[in-house]
């Protein structure tokens, strides 16, 4: 017997002895037959797909056996089963190539979360007081089926509304087909930080309604307008991989990176040059650069092709956008702008990107079109080191696909606000979206939902939205289910990833895909869906319907002919509009996605709550970043309580004076301020989304979440609420320099 064996045996006998000796309830638990064929102490790696963001990174889970208390057919007992111990990037996955971001690595906590909903729940109290009772699956499905049958009987099939989190995969496809077969409107999607303005811009400029993919590994110059591409935006792992190669992957040729933004993000912190710009003026800056380049003669206006034609004055070389004029509007010195333009045109391949706050203004689409034109001017579209559009990644943008409530593309400028879309619903199914938390108060989502007769959620957790529902049909975690994803960006080739469950379910949950199929069968008039289980659907591969959605990039004209884009004409620059009078509300308010918690959908994971923010090192907290000199002027010190007031309301939050933010900006990470989202997030911090004004991007109608102005008041001294992991902001203080 070697040492390992000895330890194993003694641990086993030890735990059995403990179990046998005390009056633990475990002693009375029955033992189920082991559910997994796993050799004790031996790890196996099983693939899955990270569900946390739409990037669709492939993961592998290290599975080892363990003894678990589980419910099986209503019976509590112990079983031995494989347990996912750790997630790593799947080395064979083309997007993340074995790497995984900080959030993805915490995703296993979803499965083991102590506050996970483990059984179907039925509302017990009045709506909104959050009281639920456990019911059986039979009863739960019976109730939902009865409601749907009632709709069908009254010929009110179109009164079934479905609200999803944007998801690129068969799960969404299944729900969409369910809706179509039932006769309901196509599902809505909602996500706070969505990229619909950018997709629209890409559709206009390049005929691809989708997020771009960047070939950073080959780039020698990267000009980013507000895109947090290393932190939270688009396909961050893929972009990080490319970035590393851009910097040090080619001996002797280090790519330069310039970031344009008005609050230094984690991405901006890596820039060789960080260029602060006035909010909403990113497009002007891009056009200023284009103007310098065209003026120098190195590129001609025509080089930009149709993308340039979307900008008023492009053909004339953007005469209005002289360096001096642009400098005045953007706050970027003319000499610097000219130098940046020179570098950008000389260091080939060079690429520009735009996202985040730069497109979350009332003129966001214009800003995006300007940057697209700049890329087109440099010939950086579809060329090595430039910007690509992944095959098969295009998203539906016209009625018929999943509509986004945030920037629904049913028809431009004719967008129905979310609450309008939902108002007439008799039955609402919610999957993954939490609009009560993540939508401006002015949209009155909570009030609307409270009015609805019947709401069903498939969530794993009770959050602000599912606290309002009548029935919760908890999903398996991603590790317990068949998963499938068709990401829209992150690699040059089309990707469809799918994976089997990594482990047996811990609770009495059911995979939402299976539940949908089950409900479809149980209806009085069963719906014709060709699969018995979600597993079958995944194994069958992308459906013809889904395949049809893959656009043919070779025939953009044909596509344009099929779906004429309204507004292919040139656009004039329009000043960004902000909610709140500049005299009264002296600060721009910038909510930005938290590196750990994103839009707040990950605030329930303790690993991520305790992840020090890259810029502030804060954990378990909310904070408001404010310029250091401004703070000094206002007598605000780190941790002091601020009241941030917009036209929509007031929140209180501790201050974090920082050197990396413009003097007239207050920035706040999203993610905290949950009223009801597990023990780890409830009642922690403040939610910046709650005071946003319902300002929209002028052309697409998407929420312009960076267009609210606020005023701030210092209301109390620091009291330790702001928890920072670390101490000094700076290396040795400059006032005591070392020799």
């Amino acid at each position, binding site marked *: 017997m070697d040492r390992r064996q000895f330890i194993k045996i003694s641990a086993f006998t030890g735990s059995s002895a403990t179990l046998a000796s005390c009056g633990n309830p475990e002693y009375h638990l029955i033992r189920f037959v082991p559910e997994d064929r796993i050799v004790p102490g031996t790890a196996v790696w099983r693939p899955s797909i990270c569900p946390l963001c739409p990037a669709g990174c492939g993961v592998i889970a290290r599975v080892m056996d363990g003894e678990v208390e589980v419910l099986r057919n209503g019976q509590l007992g112990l079983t031995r089963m494989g347990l996912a111990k750790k997630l790593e990037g799947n080395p064979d996955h083309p997007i993340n190539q074995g790497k995984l971001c900080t959030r993805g690595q915490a995703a296993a906590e979803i499965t083991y979360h102590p506050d996970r909903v483990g059984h179907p729940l039925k509302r017990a109290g009045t709506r909104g007081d959050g009281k639920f009772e456990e019911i059986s699956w039979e009863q739960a499905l019976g109730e939902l089926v009865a409601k749907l049958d009632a709709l069908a009987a009254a010929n009110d099939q179109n009164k079934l509304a479905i609200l999803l989190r944007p998801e690129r995969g068969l799960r969404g496809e299944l729900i969409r087909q369910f809706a179509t077969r039932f006769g309901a409107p196509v599902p809505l999607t909602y996500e706070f930080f969505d990229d619909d303005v950018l997709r629209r811009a890409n559709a206009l400029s390049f005929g691809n309604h989708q997020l771009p993919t960047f070939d950073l590994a080959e780039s020698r110059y990267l000009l980013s307008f507000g895109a947090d591409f290393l932190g939270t935006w688009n396909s961050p792992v893929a972009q990080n991989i490319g970035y590393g190669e851009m910097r040090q992957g080619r001996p002797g040729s280090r790519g330069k990176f310039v970031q344009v933004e008005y609050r230094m993000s984690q991405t901006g912190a890596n820039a060789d040059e960080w260029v602060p710009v006035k909010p909403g003026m990113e497009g002007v800056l891009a056009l200023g650069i284009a103007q310098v380049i065209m003026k120098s003669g190195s590129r001609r206006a025509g080089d930009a092709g149709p993308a340039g034609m979307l900008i008023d004055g492009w053909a004339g070389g953007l005469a209005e956008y002289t360096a001096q004029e642009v400098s005045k509007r953007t706050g970027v010195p003319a000499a610097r702008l000219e130098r940046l333009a020179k570098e950008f045109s000389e260091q080939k391949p060079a690429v520009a990107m735009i996202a985040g706050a730069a497109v979350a203004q009332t003129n966001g689409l214009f800003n995006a079109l300007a940057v697209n034109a700049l890329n087109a001017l440099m010939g950086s579209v579809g060329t090595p080191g430039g910007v690509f559009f992944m095959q098969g990644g295009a998203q539906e943008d016209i009625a018929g696909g999943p509509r986004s409530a945030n920037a629904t593309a049913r028809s431009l400028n004719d967008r129905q606000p979310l609450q309008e879309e939902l108002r007439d619903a008799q039955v609402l199914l919610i999957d993954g979206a939490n609009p009560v938390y993540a939508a401006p108060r002015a949209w009155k989502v909570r009030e609307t939902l409270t009015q609805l007769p019947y709401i069903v959620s498939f969530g794993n957790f009770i959050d602000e939205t599912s606290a309002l529902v009548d029935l919760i049909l908890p999903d398996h975690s991603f590790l317990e289910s068949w998963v499938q994803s068709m990401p829209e960006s992150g690699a040059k080739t089309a990707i469809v990833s799918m994976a089997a469950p990594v482990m047996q379910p811990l609770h009495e949950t059911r995979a939402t895909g299976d539940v949908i199929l089950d409900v479809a069968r149980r209806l009085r008039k069963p719906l014709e869906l060709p699969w018995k289980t979600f597993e079958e659907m995944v194994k069958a591969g992308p459906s013809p319907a889904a395949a049809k959605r893959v656009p043919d990039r070779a025939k953009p004209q044909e596509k344009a002919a099929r779906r004429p884009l309204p507004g292919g004409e040139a656009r004039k620059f329009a000043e960004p509009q902000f909610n709140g009078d500049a005299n009264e509300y002296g600060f721009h308010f910038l909510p930005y996605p938290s590196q750990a918690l994103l839009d707040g959908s990950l605030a329930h994971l303790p690993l991520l709550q305790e992840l020090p923010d890259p810029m502030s090192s804060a954990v378990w907290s909310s904070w408001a970043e404010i310029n250091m000199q401004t703070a000094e002027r206002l007598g605000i010190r780190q941790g002091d309580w601020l009241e941030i007031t917009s036209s929509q309301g007031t929140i209180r939050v501790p201050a974090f004076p920082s050197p990396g933010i413009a003097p007239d900006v207050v920035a706040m990470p999203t993610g905290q301020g949950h009223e009801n989202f597990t023990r780890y997030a409830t009642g922690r911090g403040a939610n910046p989304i709650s005071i946003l004004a319902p300002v929209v991007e002028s052309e697409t109608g998407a929420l312009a979440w960076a267009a609210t102005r606020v005023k701030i008041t210092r209301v109390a001294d620091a009291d330790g609420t702001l928890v920072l992991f*670390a*101490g*000094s902001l700076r290396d*040795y*203080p400059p006032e*005591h320099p*070392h*020799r």
Partner: protein
Amino acid sequence: MDLATERKINHDLLRPLRQTSVWFFLLVALLGSIILTGAGAWLYQLSNGLVVAGIRWPIFWAFYITNFVFWIGISHAGTLISAILRLVNATWRRPVTRCAEVITVFALMIGAMFPIIHLGRPWLFFWLIPYPSERQIWPNMRSPLAWDFFAISTYLTGSTLFLLLPIIPDFALMRDQMTGWRKKIYGVLALGWQGTTKQWHRLEAAMQIMAIAIVPVAVSVHTIVSFDFSMSPVPMWHSTVFGPYFVAGAIFSGIAGLILAMAVLRKILHLEEYLHPLHFQNLGKLLLLMSLLWGYFTFVERLTTWYGNNSAEMAVFWETQTGAYAPLFWTMVFCNFIIPFPLLAIRKLRTITGTVIASSTIVVGMWIERFLIVVPSLARKNLPYTWASYRPQPVEILITIATFAAMTLLYTLFAKAVPIISIWELKVGMHAPPLLTPEEQEQQRELWRTRP
């Protein structure tokens, strides 16, 4: 010396042993309850772990180590001073030695508790002790903490002997004077002392040996305590001046503690006839010397740091000089130098009251000094990202207060059981020819006239 005087001495000095006022019990009850509170705090910490203390990453040492250094420092009052005074044959020492030596023993006992109180797993403290274990693992002799163990245990043994040896004749006296169970106990403690010439010779020889041996031990103890800090590459810890700085500070705080103890004894036990202003004057002079030495070391330490301008050290330097710890730092300078210096340097002010005021501020100042050595350096270590600040928590404060109560209680109980002034030495002193110069005698007479 006549019999009447001897009787009076016996009567005066044994009176506390014979008479017990209600105040004694009240005092013991008060101190006892403070100590029990402290013990409760420690139990609370034992059951919860150091999570209830204020220490944190990366300030892993704070109040407990401050107390450790402080009490080991206080312990330098007695044995060292008494030994030096014995060696130079300063006759005025006679009423002072015992109350000084007691401080050493008790302060060491209290101080030595702190390395255990501060441990993460105090139940395993014996792993610091070299004993032949079944695992055949010895303590790491390269660790200053192992040195601490040897230094402190040697010092404690030595100073306990140093205290007990000269009590033997007094135990014998009490054996002869007392009745009942006390007689029995003192009889045992007297170890068969008969006062034969041979015994006196042996006692004298033993005292001489101990006095010589204990001086280097005392010096090494606080040097080794300083090594706990100066052996680490921590900004402003890693300093060659720390050894003498710690020893000087220790003697400094020790004398201050002694003066306070003497003043209280004098008042409460009515020992005005034995503890004269001269004793306070002389100790005051010593204290003045130590205050100057302390000021010198502090200045030297600060100056070399500042001149060296090492960035990591400068961070600690400015933090204590002008930053968050500056109020404490300047309080310390006031307490240890600016207040005591004139009180001790100006002869008119070097009265009992004057020295007591100076000593009080010095005890406070030296505690702060220990704190300022331990905490700011850890709060400002080399990588600024890890800088932090420390707030003591109730357990740490309660345990700290309890140690002061423990010191007082132990001292009180000792004074209740043993004459706090060495009776035989006092008597011997009276037989001795005057050692004072005529001038000094004149002065002394002056002073005695001014006695209240």
